[in-house]
């Protein structure tokens, strides 16, 4: 399963951009327009989509797409 592609498709549901436009250094808040509520809702969606449980403290430190993918891959490989 291509987690990266599925992940980017999920992000695209939240902003006015196509998944193909995303780059790893894009920041959720500043570049993609996420606010506190949409970011936390996105994290909940992430848990449901990939059937994993995030640690709140670590998840809240995520600022970019690249960091989120790295964190997700770490959790999925455990």
């Amino acid at each position, binding site marked *: 399963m291509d987690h990266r592609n599925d992940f980017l498709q999920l992000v695209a*549901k*939240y*902003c*006015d951009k196509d998944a193909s436009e995303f780059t790893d250094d894009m920041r959720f*808040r500043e570049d993609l327009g996420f*606010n*506190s*509520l*949409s970011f*936390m*809702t*996105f*994290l*909940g969606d992430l*848990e*449901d989509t990939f*059937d994993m*449980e995030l640690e*709140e403290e670590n998840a*809240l430190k995520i600022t970019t797409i690249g960091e989120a993918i790295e964190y997700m891959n770490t959790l999925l490989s455990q």
Partner: protein
Amino acid sequence: MERILYPLNVGQMLQYLPIRETGTQRCCNISVFSGLQTEIDFDLLKRCIKDEYRRYECLRLRFTAPDEEGFVQQYIAERDDRDVPFLDLSDRTMEEADAYLQELTFEEFRDAEIPMVEITMVRMPEGYNGMYIHVDHRLVDSSGLIVMVNDIMELYCHYRFGSDYPEPLASFEEVLISDLEKAGNSKRQARDEKFWHEYLTENGEPIYSDVRGPRILQESRRRHSDKSLRVADVETRDRSVGVADFHLEPEATQTLLDFCATQGVSMTNLILLSMRTYLSKMNGGQEDITLRNFVSRRSTRAEWTCGGSRVLSFPCRTIIPPDTEFLDALYEVQNIQNRIYLHCNYDPVAVDSMLKKLYGAPADTEYISMSLTYQPMPVRMQNEHLAGINTRSVWYPNGAATKQIYLTVTHSSNDGGLIFDYHYQKAVLTYDDIQKLYYYMMKMMFRGVEEPDITIGELISTT
């Protein structure tokens, strides 16, 4: 075509429960006038409103009669070809016209399986022309209503001036199906339930606070002969509502917005902090304050334009010692709110029941006296053809206060300044109480923004 029946989502259920409890649909009405101070082609506007009934699926929602347990189901009618009525109030004063529309607000949508919205074109005094929208809250919340008004005006500009035809709106039905699937996700439900149980127990029982000071809790303690009671009685007989509106100038609003942007905090949390600090001040420096924050669960693109009622409310409890600096207190509020946001798909009614069950609160009592909803989206009418035209948006209270103080903060469509719209229970509070609350909230917010390292204790004692 066979109709498909769906249960209400949690946001709609939150609106429906008061109807079920009070037996009147009135408490679930939203009534708004939205218009422009310019001539409007009403034939064209009628065409746009009829288009909107087709485009905005949620406007065609119908509800079945309640079942044996009092619950209703919903379906989407295939079409709604009603005519759009017209009302001319231009020969009255603005006060008289508003009073007339206010009266219409009390009209109920009584029957099952009927349209739950009525849009009337209105010619108002002082050259304002537009629409009066009377709708059941289960069809739209304030965000949904704003999306609708903007969409109608975009359609109008398309037909009138040739601007681009607006993008389609998301399907209410598709988002509802997704909501119901999420609500049925047992892992998610278990995680949310665990969170809420921990959240409600980690600091023990909350304690009531009131803008009128600690005497309200003390009176309840006497009434219940319980010196340790931490909830206060609620006035349930007289629910008549008072309204107090205050406008914060655009420059001052910008100061707050700039501060929020610089510090990476939201306006919601800044307002929550000012509310809880005022309650703390009025209750002898009480550190443990609980407010109710209304969250509009609109995060994905589809959720923003699908309509429906997506507003949920949860208790926001903060315990902030007086030596905490303003900015740290703000981050504390933000931290609590972020935790709540992660679990805000959970049924808020279940959270309230859990809280009452955990601590055995007596019937008709509350831990919370003040509620907030912050609406960041203005009625934009950003179309270039409408630029510079004065707008008028009036939200008419439905006459039933379900909360002691319910503050709605919005951005003015005319100048972008903040509008603080307080609905309060007239049986227990006066306009002066609310004016004082607003005055101190502003004083505390601006002092904190100016001196972010001031302690909460200092803020309380010097403002």
